[in-house]
C-alpha cells in the first residue's frame, strides 16, 4: 500500500495511522528469528484469543512484548511460568493501533531441556548412591489404613479416580485430601508442605501422591530433590501415581509403591470390603466349628466316663457274688453232708455223737443220721 504524506507548507507530514502502517509494512519484511529471554508478565486467559507475555533480557533488562494465538500456545502444552527461560521463534510485528512493536511467536520452547535431563540423571545417580531407592527401604502398605492422605492437584481426573476407587472398594475409608500445585516452579515445595501437613495427622497410615499425565516439564516437580527426599523420609508408606505408565519421575523410585495409575493407587491402599467380609465370615465359621468340635469331644469323654461310673457298682457286685459262690462251693466241700451221701452215717446217743463203742451199752437208743434223713435204732 502506498503511504502518502500530506503537504504542510514546506513539510511533508504523515498521519499517525499512515506512519504506523508504513512502519508495520517495513517491519513485516524482517525475517523470522529465535529470541532468547526470560518470561515475565505472562497473561493467559481462557476467554482471550491471544496469550501475552514479556520477554526480558536477564542480563540487560531489555524487554520485548510477545503475542501468540491462544490455540497455538495451548497446543504446545508447555505450561510456562514467569521466570522461565525460553526460546521464542517469531517475527516482529507492529501493532498499528498503538504503535507497539511486538514479537509474534510461532513457537516457544523451554530453553535447556537437555540440561534438565542431564541434571536429572545426575540427581538420580546421587540419590541412588545414598540408598534412597533401595528395595530394603520399601515398607509394606497397611491392610486397613485408619486415614489415607491424598496429595493431588485440583486436576479433577486423578483426584476423582483415586477417591472413587477407594470409596467403592472400601466405603468406611477416611481420606484426607491435600490439594496443592502439581506443576510449575511452586509445585515441589508445595507438595513437600502438603506431605508434611498430612503427616501431622495422628491417624495417617498411608499417603497417595497422584497426578495425571503431562509433559516432561509438567512432571519435573516430581523429580525435584526436595520432593524425592520428602517422599523417602515420609513416616508412613507412600504410593505414587504420577503421569503415565512410561513416566518415571524420581519420586516414583523413592516411593514405597509405584502405582501405574491413580485408580491402581486407590486399589492398593484399601482392601476390598466384600473380600474382607468373606474372610471374616470364614474365620467366624471356623471359630464355631473349632469350638463345637472341642465341645463334642469333651461331651463324648464325659459320656464315656459316666458309663464307666454306672457300670462300676454292678461290676463290684458281680465280683463279690463270684467270691461268695466260690466260698459256698468250698463250704460245700467241707460239709459232712457229702460224706453222708457217700454212705457214711452219723450216730448219736442222746445229744452226743457216738465216737467210741465204749460209750454205749446194749439197749441204748441211738439216732442214726444218713444222707436223706434219720431213724432210731438200739444197741444190741
Amino acid at each position: 500500500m502506498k503511504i502518502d504524506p500530506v503537504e504542510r507548507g514546506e513539510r511533508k507530514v504523515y498521519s499517525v495511522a499512515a506512519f504506523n502502517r508504513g512502519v508495520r509494512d517495513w517491519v513485516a519484511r524482517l525475517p523470522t528469528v529465535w529470541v532468547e529471554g526470560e518470561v515475565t508478565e505472562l497473561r493467559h486467559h481462557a476467554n482471550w484469543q491471544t496469550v501475552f507475555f514479556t520477554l526480558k533480557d536477564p542480563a540487560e533488562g531489555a524487554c520485548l512484548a510477545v503475542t501468540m494465538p491462544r490455540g497455538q500456545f495451548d497446543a504446545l502444552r508447555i505450561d510456562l511460568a514467569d521466570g522461565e527461560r525460553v526460546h521464542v521463534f517469531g517475527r516482529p510485528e507492529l501493532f498499528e493501533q498503538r504503535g507497539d512493536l511486538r514479537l509474534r511467536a510461532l513457537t516457544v520452547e523451554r530453553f535447556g531441556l537437555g540440561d534438565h535431563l542431564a541434571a536429572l540423571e545426575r540427581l538420580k545417580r546421587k540419590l541412588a548412591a545414598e540408598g534412597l531407592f533401595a528395595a530394603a527401604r520399601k515398607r509394606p502398605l497397611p491392610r486397613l489404613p485408619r486415614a489415607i492422605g491424598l496429595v493431588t492437584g485440583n486436576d479433577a481426573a486423578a483426584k476423582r479416580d483415586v477417591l472413587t476407587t477407594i470409596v467403592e472398594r472400601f466405603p468406611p475409608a477416611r481420606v484426607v485430601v491435600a490439594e496443592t500445585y502439581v506443576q510449575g516452579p511452586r509445585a515441589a515445595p508445595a507438595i513437600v508442605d502438603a506431605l508434611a501437613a498430612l503427616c501431622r495427622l495422628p491417624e495417617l497410615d498411608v499417603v497417595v501422591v497422584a497426578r495425571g499425565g503431562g509433559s516432561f516439564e509438567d512432571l519435573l516437580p516430581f523429580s525435584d530433590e526436595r520432593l524425592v527426599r520428602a517422599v523417602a523420609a515420609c513416616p508412613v508408606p507412600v504410593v505414587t501415581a504420577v503421569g503415565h505408565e512410561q513416566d518415571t519421575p524420581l519420586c516414583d523410585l523413592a516411593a514405597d509403591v509405584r502405582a501405574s495409575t491413580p485408580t491402581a493407587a486407590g486399589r492398593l491402599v484399601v482392601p476390598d470390603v466384600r473380600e474382607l467380609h468373606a474372610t471374616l465370615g470364614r474365620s467366624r465359621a471356623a471359630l464355631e466349628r473349632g469350638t463345637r468340635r472341642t465341645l463334642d469331644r469333651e461331651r463324648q469323654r464325659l459320656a464315656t466316663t459316666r458309663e464307666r461310673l454306672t457300670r462300676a457298682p454292678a461290676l463290684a457286685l458281680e465280683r463279690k457274688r463270684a467270691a461268695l459262690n466260690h466260698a459256698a462251693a468250698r463250704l460245700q466241700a467241707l460239709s459232712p453232708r457229702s460224706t453222708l451221701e457217700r454212705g457214711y452215717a452219723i450216730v448219736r446217743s442222746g445229744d452226743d455223737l457216738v465216737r467210741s463203742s465204749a460209750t454205749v451199752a446194749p439197749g441204748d437208743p441211738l439216732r442214726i443220721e444218713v444222707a436223706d434223713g434219720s431213724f432210731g435204732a438200739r444197741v444190741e
Partner: protein
Amino acid sequence: MSAEPTFEAAQRELEQIVERLERGQTGLDEAIALWERGEELYRFCLGKLDAAHGRIEELARVATETPT
C-alpha cells in the same frame, strides 16, 4: 475390649484363635474362652467394616492463592 486394637491386629488375633481351636488341643474352659474372645473380635472387625460411612476431608489448603 481394652485399648482399641487396629482392625489388622484384631483380625490376626481372630485367625490365631481359629488356628488354636482347629489344632484341637484346647480344654473345654479354654475353648469356650477362646470362642468368646473370637466372637468379640469378629464383632469388632465387622463393626469396623460397617462403621459409619467413610469421610473425605479437605486438608486446609496448603497453598491458598491460585496461580495467575
